[in-house]
């Protein structure tokens, strides 16, 4: 087939143009902005004040930003472990020839499709509510008074409640990625292992798991991207103003770039907001680099 260079160029140019204008240019501009003191995000360049890394230094001294970083670290680590473990278990179960696997796959993926706002509202009002939420009702029915009176959205528990609600919805996405990878393992390897007398656990550890290396890398990078972008759930669990339990860097960035909802706080700091954006970008790049380094993509020759 003759390669039609002109057609290739025609189809590529719009996509490349969109990429450069919507992704590349804003990234470069934001990085540039992070070294200036800027009030409004659309202010003209003449109003920008160069201040070097002052924005970054100020951020790392700001208690609520430090709290936000600590929150997303916990979310990434604890949430990540939980989500990957549950997703892997579901993926293995559903690829082992279970009846109704397709149905369960759709059901587990469903929370991913539902809007985060709807999910968050449902969790807050129907699961965690102290008077008529499902947790309260179950524990009251079981007569476990100490658990029935727990304030699920109270201080100390609010973060974990939010984490559970968020991770619940994320399992489906990662499960699908695992499933796709598991289904690619050639049956011949499993059959050979079965003949050699390996049981299901040994087969999983020695046959399936090595094939999932690349998949783990993908999942970790995607999970890092999702964590860094954590915003909607933080807003839902703490509407109007920020809380130490629910703040993530994006929530703080939203507050300082556009001005808080509070009537008395109208000061904006888009320079600091840009710095937050750059820090998030660096985190994802580091995560990507590390996972690439640790989990080498050695595609097995078939």
């Amino acid at each position, binding site marked *: 087939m003759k390669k*039609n*260079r*002109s*057609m290739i*160029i*025609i189809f590529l*140019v*719009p996509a490349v*143009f969109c990429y450069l204008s919507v992704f590349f240019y804003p990234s470069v501009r934001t990085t540039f902005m992070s070294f200036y003191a800027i009030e*409004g995000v*659309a202010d003209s360049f003449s109003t920008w004040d160069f201040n070097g890394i002052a924005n970054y230094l100020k951020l790392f001294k*700001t*208690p*609520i930003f430090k*709290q936000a970083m600590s929150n997303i670290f916990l979310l990434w680590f604890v949430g990540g472990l939980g989500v990957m473990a549950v997703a892997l278990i579901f993926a293995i179960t559903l690829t082992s020839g279970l009846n109704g696997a397709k149905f369960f796959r759709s059901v587990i993926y469903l929370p991913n499709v539902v809007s985060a706002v709807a999910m968050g509202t449902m969790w*807050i009002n129907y699961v965690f*509510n*102290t*008077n008529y939420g499902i947790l309260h009702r179950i524990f009251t029915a079981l007569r476990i008074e100490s658990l029935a009176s727990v*304030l*699920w*959205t*109270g*201080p*100390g528990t*609010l973060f974990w409640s939010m984490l559970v609600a968020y991770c619940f919805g994320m399992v489906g996405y990662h499960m699908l990625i695992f499933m796709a990878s598991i289904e690619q393992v050639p049956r011949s390897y499993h059959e050979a292992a079965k003949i050699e007398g390996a049981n299901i656990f040994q087969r999983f550890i020695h046959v399936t798991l090595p094939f999932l290396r690349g998949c783990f890398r993908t999942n970790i990078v995607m999970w890092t991207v999702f964590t860094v972008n954590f915003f909607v759930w933080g807003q839902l*669990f*703490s*509407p*109007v*103003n*920020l*809380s*130490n*339990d629910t*703040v993530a860097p994006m929530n*703080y960035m939203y*507050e*300082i770039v*556009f*001005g*808080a*909802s*509070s*009537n*008395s*706080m*109208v000061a*904006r700091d888009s320079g600091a907001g840009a710095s937050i954006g750059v820090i998030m970008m660096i985190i994802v790049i580091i995560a990507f680099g590390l996972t690439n380094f640790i989990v080498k993509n050695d595609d097995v020759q078939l």
Partner: protein
Amino acid sequence: MFIFIINIVSLQNKQKEKEMKKSKSFFIVLMVLVLMITMPCFAGGEKEDSDSKTVVYWSMWNEAEPQGLVLVQAAEAYEEETGVAVEIVFNGREIRKTLQPALDAGEVVDIFDEDVTRVNGIWADYLLPLDELASQVYPSTDGKSFENSVSSALLDLARQEGKGVLKVIPYQPYAFIVMYNKDLFNEAGISGTPKTWEEFEVVCEKLKAAGITPLTTDDAYMAVFFGYNIARLAGEERCLEMAMNQDFNDPSVLKFGEIYEDFAKKGYISKNAASNIYPAGQIEEIAKGTTAMYLNGTWLPNEIKGSAPDFNWGCFAWPEMDPNSPSGVETNNYGAQSFGINKNSTVAKEAFEFVVYMTTGKWDGILAQESLGVPMGLNSVWPKQTQEAKVVIDNTTNWMTWGGGMEADANITSKIKENFKKLITGALDAESFYAAMNK
């Protein structure tokens, strides 16, 4: 357009001239780029009728809100009476984020509105000074000048926020006071309203004895609640100073801890206040009639009228907490939304006339009635739900900033929320609350 390009390309391909390929590719790339960049210019715009004038108003309300519904009707009536069309763009509270880019891009926006502090603060560069227009007489002001027909306290506030210049016209004013359920007060055998802290504690005791939770709050209002208390205990100026310096080393903070540790133990403040995610407190506790009092704005009846249509509302100022403190019941936070007029507007006079139309006379009254709010015009009738607020506002001689300044910084707001919640659940006592606030 693309078919045209493809035809050109295939024709040129048939010629098979290699030296043409490089410049041909360049030519194609250039054409596609030019098309993409100029495409938006082909998008249709609306032609303005040069004969009739149109005022474009970007509103902070949503069309379905009572204020939105009234505005639509008022705009239609206004067009019938004056021939000037008012085009309303309902942004909702997102206007806080969407207006600035629109103004910067030179979009036609003649009027915009939001909180009086916010309009003067964020969009100051676009505001037209209004002193001159406000000193004139208009059809709905009964022969007086506009500025003499509306609440002077609010115009003074607008001037204060505008650094001495009247740049916005306030409307939909509010006061931050105790909103309470009169039926529950009657049930508990309480007559009258408390003016001092001792009287307030007696009220709480009676309510508790009748099986009613006296007080609650939402996470969204905790910093303001704290600020109000500190302002009463230490004086409004000291409170503001503490907020600006982020310094809580003051006996009033310990006193706050002692009071609410006690309240939490006695059940005077709802345990749910520690876990309420806005608007749970106002909807599940106040609207449902299990809790009697809520320190909130006079907008509350409007916000929960859907959940509690026959609520019997009363209001009183947050009581005096320390007779020796410089601030008592005469110090309250009040504010308003406000209309600003774009200094680049070509129909500024007509825009101002519409603002006058909404803040005096018939439509001011309708807006207040439908939104259960507070009217601007001195002769307007107050809705039943907020009538008692009028007494409080009339007796407020000292204006306090929102929450005493305690919501001015995200670091303080989140610190207050976390520690106050723990004080309510009993995880912190007064001493440890004081220590945590000073960490």
